[in-house]
């Protein structure tokens, strides 16, 4: 969709090198279709809402990746705990845990072996994910706070569009009423007499 004149006045949203400008434009177009902004103020709000939603999507993507990135160290730590026999120190099983955790992602045999170890303790693969979440909980908490703040701002911006639109509608209604009542508008029948008075 071609950019309207008003949109070219608004500062462009900076994107990461890996993000697509077309995807952002599509998102903004979708909001424009829904909200149908009229005038620059409503355009500003739609632009803001799209930027906030874009940031929300970026942070949500990060959340998933952060957990995924913590999976290997989580599995290694879990295996160290599970492989250790009584009387053994953790460092004694460290190498085995490390090798197994590394190959778990690519080697089917390793995956099977890890499942067996987990099942010995009535655990399954969700234990690995739980450990990954536990290990990244500080980052996830920060991300969640930022997401909550962005969601509040998005809702507020949506409310502002509605409020502004209602206020504009009220203003237009009052103007229309005044025109209908003839207040402040020159009546046609008064026009000649006013002209003759002036003369």
């Amino acid at each position, binding site marked *: 969709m071609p950019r309207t004149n*008003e949109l070219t*006045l*608004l*500062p*462009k*949203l*900076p*994107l*990461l*090198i*890996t993000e697509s400008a077309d995807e952002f434009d599509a998102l903004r177009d979708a909001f424009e279709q829904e909200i149908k902004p009229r005038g*620059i*103020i409503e355009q*500003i709000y739609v632009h*803001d809402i799209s*930027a906030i939603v874009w*940031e929300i999507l*970026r*942070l949500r*993507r*990060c959340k998933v*990746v*952060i957990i*995924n*990135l913590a999976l290997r160290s989580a599995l290694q730590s879990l295996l160290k705990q599970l492989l250790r026999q009584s009387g053994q120190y953790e460092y004694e099983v460290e190498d085995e845990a490390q090798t197994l955790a590394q190959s778990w992602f690519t080697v089917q045999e390793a995956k099977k072996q890890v499942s067996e170890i987990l099942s010995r303790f009535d655990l399954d693969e969700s234990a690995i994910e739980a450990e990954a979440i536990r290990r990244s909980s500080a*980052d996830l908490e*920060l*991300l969640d*706070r*930022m997401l909550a*703040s962005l969601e509040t*701002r998005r809702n*507020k*911006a949506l409310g*502002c569009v509605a409020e*502004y639109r209602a*206020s*504009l509608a*009220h*203003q237009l209604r*009052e*103007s229309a009423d*005044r025109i209908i009542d003839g207040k402040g508008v020159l009546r046609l029948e008064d026009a000649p007499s006013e002209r003759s008075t002036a003369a």
Partner: protein
Amino acid sequence: MASERQIAANRRNARKSIGPRCGAGKKRASRNAYRHGLTLSVISTTAVAKQLDKLVRKIAGDSKDAMVLERARAIAQAELDLARVRRAKVALIERASAFGELNPPQLTVTQMIRLLNAFDRGRLIVPKPIDALATMPSQEPDRSAEAVRRVLPELRKLDRYDRRAAAQRERAVLEFSDRMKYMDNP
């Protein structure tokens, strides 16, 4: 907690201080209040000033009323402030993605103790530089996500400026529409 006598002594001693004396100290102290410049006025360059003026004209329409123009300027300024904070956020993430972190790596306490112990024994160890980039994932989207993770505290701080600019804009829009209503029906 400090006793009354201690507080009095601290105040007496503080009165004796006349601030930094050397050039470097004075220069450093002159930048005490400066952190990142996000609270500075947005009209710092001609290009931005022009963009601001265009936006103000578009918001105010053909109104000549000083109050309308002033409110329109407040809306436009808050909008450009928001854009500046967003640019700062993206720039931080890109920098972390390119270099692995924002600040040069510091020695940990353990490494420091190890160095001192070696020095005591008459040996000098040259510490290996810590390469933050080496621990960055090479593939996307992992790399960007890791960059975001590494700058999370900074992003959270920028969020405060983001919220403030948005609140300023909302206030200005309210006042702008009130003024427009008044102009229509004085």
